[in-house]
C-alpha cells in the first residue's frame, strides 16, 4: 500500500461536505427541472425560446465578460506595480487591493449608491463646480453594475497575476531587448506570454464568480441589467416557480462547466503548439 492510498481517508470530510451540500441539492434541482410539471425538457425549451430569458442569459455573459476584461486591464498594471515596487509600497498596495474583501458586499453596494446617485457626492461636486448642468445617470445602469463588480472582483485578478509575475525573472526581458526587441515587442512577445497563466487563472475566477452575481446588479443595475441569479431568485420568490428556476440554475452550472472545459482545452492546445 502506498502512502497516497493510506492517506486517502483524509479526504472523507471534504467528500461528505461536497456530497451533502452540493451533489445532493444539485441532483434535486436537476430532477425538478425535468420532472415538473411533467417529465421532459419543457423548462429548458422555455428558457431557450423566450426572448426574456435569452436576454437575461446574454446579459449575464456580457456583464461577466466586460467585468473580466476591465479587471484584466486594471489588474495588470496594479499587479505589475506590486511586483516592482519597494517593499512598503507593495504592502500598501496589497492592503488596498484586499480592503474590498473585508467589507460586506451589501454595504459596499449601498456605498456606491450613495456616491453615484443623482444626489450623490460625484454629481453634487460636478454640478457644484459647474462642469455639468444636469446630474449624470451613473447608477441604475450597466456602468454602475460594472463599477461595483469590478471593484469587488479585482483581487481575484490581481493576486493570481501577482504570483505569476513575481516569479518571472527580469533576465527574460533583458534577453529579449539584447536580442533586438524594442521594449514594446519584448513586452508582447516575451513578458505577456509569461503572464498568461496568471491572466488565465484570474480571468476564469472573475468570469465564473461574476456569472452568479446577484446583489450588485440588483442594487446598482437598471431593468436591462438583470442577471441569471436575479432571475432565479425572482422565479422562486415571486412565482414559486421551482421547476423553471431549477432549470435556470442547471443552465448556469452547465454553462460554467463548459466554459471551464473549453479554457482547459485551449490552454492544452497552446502548450502542444510548435
Amino acid at each position, binding site marked *: 500500500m502506498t502512502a497516497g492510498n493510506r492517506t486517502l481517508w483524509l479526504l472523507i470530510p471534504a467528500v461528505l461536505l461536497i456530497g451533502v451540500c452540493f451533489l445532493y441539492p444539485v441532483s434535486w434541482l436537476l430532477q425538478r427541472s425535468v420532472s415538473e410539471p411533467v417529465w421532459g425538457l419543457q423548462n429548458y425549451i422555455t428558457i431557450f425560446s423566450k426572448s426574456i430569458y435569452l436576454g437575461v442569459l446574454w446579459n449575464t455573459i456580457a456583464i461577466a465578460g466586460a467585468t473580466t476584461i476591465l479587471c484584466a486591464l486594471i489588474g495588470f498594471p496594479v499587479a505589475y506595480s506590486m511586483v516592482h515596487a519597494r517593499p512598503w509600497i507593495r504592502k500598501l498596495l496589497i492592503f488596498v487591493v484586499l480592503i474590498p474583501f473585508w467589507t460586506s458586499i451589501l454595504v459596499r453596494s449601498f456605498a456606491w449608491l450613495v456616491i453615484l446617485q443623482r444626489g450623490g457626492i460625484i454629481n453634487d461636486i460636478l454640478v457644484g463646480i459647474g462642469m455639468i448642468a444636469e446630474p449624470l445617470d451613473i447608477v441604475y445602469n450597466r456602468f454602475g453594475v460594472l463599477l461595483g463588480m469590478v471593484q469587488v472582483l479585482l483581487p481575484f485578478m490581481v493576486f493570481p497575476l501577482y504570483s505569476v509575475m513575481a516569479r518571472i*525573472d527580469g*533576465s*527574460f526581458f*533583458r*534577453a*529579449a*531587448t*539584447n*536580442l*533586438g*526587441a*524594442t*521594449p514594446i*515587442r*519584448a513586452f508582447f*512577445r*516575451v513578458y505577456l*506570454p*509569461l503572464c*498568461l497563466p496568471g491572466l488565465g487563472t484570474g480571468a476564469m475566477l472573475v468570469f465564473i464568480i461574476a456569472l452568479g452575481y446577484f446583489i450588485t446588479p440588483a442594487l446598482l443595475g437598471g431593468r436591462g441589467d438583470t442577471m441569471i441569479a436575479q432571475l432565479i431568485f425572482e422565479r422562486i420568490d415571486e412565482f414559486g416557480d421551482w421547476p423553471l428556476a431549477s432549470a435556470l440554475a442547471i443552465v448556469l452550472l452547465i454553462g460554467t462547466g463548459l466554459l471551464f472545459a473549453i479554457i482547459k482545452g485551449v490552454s492544452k492546445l497552446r502548450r502542444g503548439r*510548435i
Partner: protein
Amino acid sequence: MTEPLLKLAGLGKAYGQVDAAKDINLDVADGEFVTFLGPSGSGKTTTLMMVAGFTEPTAGGISLNGQPLDPIPVWKRDIGMVFQHYALFPHMTVAQNIAFPLEMRGVAKGDRRKRAEEAMEMVGLAGFGSRLPKELSGGQQQRVALARAMVFKPRLLLMDEPLGALDKKLREHMQLEIMHLHKNMGTTVLYVTHDQEEALVMSDRIAVFSNGRIEQVGSPRELYEAPQTKFVADFIGETNFIAGKAQGCNGAGASVRGLNGQLGAPLQEGADAVLAVRPERLKVMNGAGAAGGNTLTGTVKELIYLGQSRKAIIALEDGTEVAALEQAAQAEATALEMGSQATLSFRAEDARILADV
C-alpha cells in the same frame, strides 16, 4: 596596431557614494577572447552590463568600431549575450528561441528557419528544434543560449558566468566547445567569470578586477608568471608570500629579508612588501642545507599526496608557512618526512617582489 573593436575609456559606475566600477580602461581587438576575472562584487559584471547597455555608465565611455555606444539603446547595439541562467524563453521552442533575434530583425520566415537550423547544428543540437527549453539538460540549454546569442552574427559576444550552473566535468567540456566556437566563428568575446582556472584555460587576455578597478590586464601566462600586484598573485593560482621590507630596489630587482626577486611594479625603498613565489618554483632539499642565496629553512609540517604531485607545507622559523610542489618522481627522491628539516631554494627570476597592501 589596428583600431580596437571595443574601447572602454575611463568607464565608471557609481551608486551614490559607492563605486561599482571605476576608471576602467581596456582595448579589445577584433577576434580576441578577453575574460573579466575577479571575486563577486569586483565590478566585472557591472562593466559587462554597461557594454550590453543594461547599466548606464556614470563616467567615461564605450565605443565599438570607433563609434560611441552610449546613445545606442540595448536593442540596437547588435551585441550578443549569454546570461548566467541562460534566460531561454520558456514558452518558446528551441527553434523559436534561436530564431528570435532574426525575427526581431525582420528576417523572412524561411531564411529564419534555415539560419536557426544552421545555428543548432553548430552547437550540436540538430533535431532538437521542437523541444521546449525545460525538456533539455543544463548543458543543452547552455548550447541553445550560445546559438541564440550567435545566430545573428553579433559584432561582440558577452558571456556572464555562463558555465556557473554546470557540474565540473560538463563545465570543462563546454569550455573547450566555447573556445572552438570562438576560433571557428572569429567572434570577439567578453567573458565574465570568478573561476581563475576557467580564465586561464580560455582567454587570450584576462583583466583581473578588484574593488571596481582593473588590477592588471595580460595574457594568462603574464598574469601567472609576472603579477604586478599582490592581489593578482594571490587570486590566480597558488602563491607563497614572504612579508618584509623592500630593499635594494634597483628598477628591475629588489630583495625582501635577504631574498632576491624581480619587481612587479616600481616600489619605494623600505616599503612594506612581499616576495611571491609559486610552489612549483621551489626546489626542495631534505635537511638543513647550506644557507646560500635565496634559500629558506624550516620544518616539514604537512605532506599532501596529490597523485601526480606532492605538496609539502614547510613552516619557517617565524611561523610563515610555505607550500612547495614536487612532481611524484622528484618527491620520492627528496623523501621528506614529517617534522624533519627541509631547505627550499629558488631562482631570483622566479620570484616577484610586490607592494604589500
